[in-house]
């Protein structure tokens, strides 16, 4: 297995890149999905997808920070965040489905049933 060159080259590349580039990626995803929530106000499904992306990018950010400070608390926090994101997406989609079942639309402009 030592002779597998391509993965070793991948490892060399990944060690050569400083963590700054990865922070740039995760922050770009966070900003982009926040912009998506603001921009795509009409479509509820897109808003849910953007929120999901924000959570995933945050988990990625936590993992990066844990590498940066050489501790594992960030890793565990990211792990739990990913689990929570899975449960949260299921919850949101089930609310969406039952709302569509009652009202026959998911147009954000006319969603008023959930107002208190």
């Amino acid at each position, binding site marked *: *297995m*030592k*002779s*597998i*060159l*391509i*993965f070793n080259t*991948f*490892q060399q590349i990944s060690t050569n890149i400083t963590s700054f580039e990865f922070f740039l990626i995760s922050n770009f995803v966070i900003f982009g999905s926040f912009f998506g929530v603001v921009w795509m106000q009409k479509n509820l499904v897109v808003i849910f997808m953007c929120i999901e992306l924000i959570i995933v990018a945050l988990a990625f950010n936590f*993992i990066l920070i844990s590498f940066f400070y050489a*501790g*594992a*608390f960030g*890793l*565990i926090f*990211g*792990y739990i965040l*990913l*689990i929570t994101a*899975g*449960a949260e*997406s*299921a919850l949101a989609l089930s609310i969406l489905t039952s709302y569509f079942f009652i009202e026959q639309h998911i147009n954000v402009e006319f969603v008023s049933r959930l107002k208190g």
Partner: protein
Amino acid sequence: MNSFLIFILLQLYSFLILFVPLLVVMAFITLLERKVMGIMQRRRGPNVIGFFGLLQPFADGVKLLLKEPVFPYQADILLFIFAPLLTFFVSLLSWVIIPLTTTEPVLDLNIGVIFILGSSSLGVYGILLAGWASNSKYAFFGSIRSAAQMISYEVAMSLAIFPVICLAQSFSLKDIILVQENSVWFLFSLFPSAICFYISILAETNRSPFDLPEAEGELVAGYNVEYSAFFFAFFYLAEYLNILLLSTVFVILFLGGGSFFILKSSVLIFALKIFFIVYTVIWVRATLPRYRYDQLMLVGWKILLPFTTGYALFVAGLLFGIFKITEVIF
């Protein structure tokens, strides 16, 4: 130029030496399933082609490759072709970090557990795309069921792995194996977690008793109704590769990799353990009847999730309170 050619050839060799044996093993697992289920149902199974039907999977593969790929009316052709490729790619992705020899994994990631969970959750997208792109009600219902099932059981699966991480104090698969070699298998110390993880394996790979997506009576064959020829072959390959992968992960996390009590750890023992887990998955299929859909969701959300959450908190609290472990080394 010559050295560059040698470099390219070595890279090609390094890919082939990992993935070709994997695909051959996968082909024989399909044969194993048919033979074992045949024996359990008192019939012969495939026994015509080759010695004891050993060439049957290759004959099936050739048949699938020679058939004509059919595209349904008004299907989204691009996504229709992309979905099986994505599913197949995702099922191959995780194999890179599996430490098949106990000393040297191919890519030594120290966040191996997170990588496996992330890449296995990507598999949902291939299934959703397949159902949506094929412009058929049956495929769409099958894909929705399958996606809901996979999302639900992923949560329980992640939480079932959490005590293992706490005890091994590492996210690296290699370290988890080494900890179990030096002490005791996590199957004994974390038995409830192992059971929950096993149930999640069955649900995650859409196997019986949770094979709701391909309920033949209601939906014809789930998300891959409209697929034929080698696009179907990709789905077929991906399904069995996922079973093999999750069985391997089970062996690594709970059965201690290649270690067997006092014996020296070896690849052979590792392979035998994986074979045993795959055999039990087939055994479960031949034995248990199918769940109803609401029962499936009830087991996932109301039984497995609270139990695994409580158990993870219990183990973490035990380590923190009694053994005063506060730092995770990685």
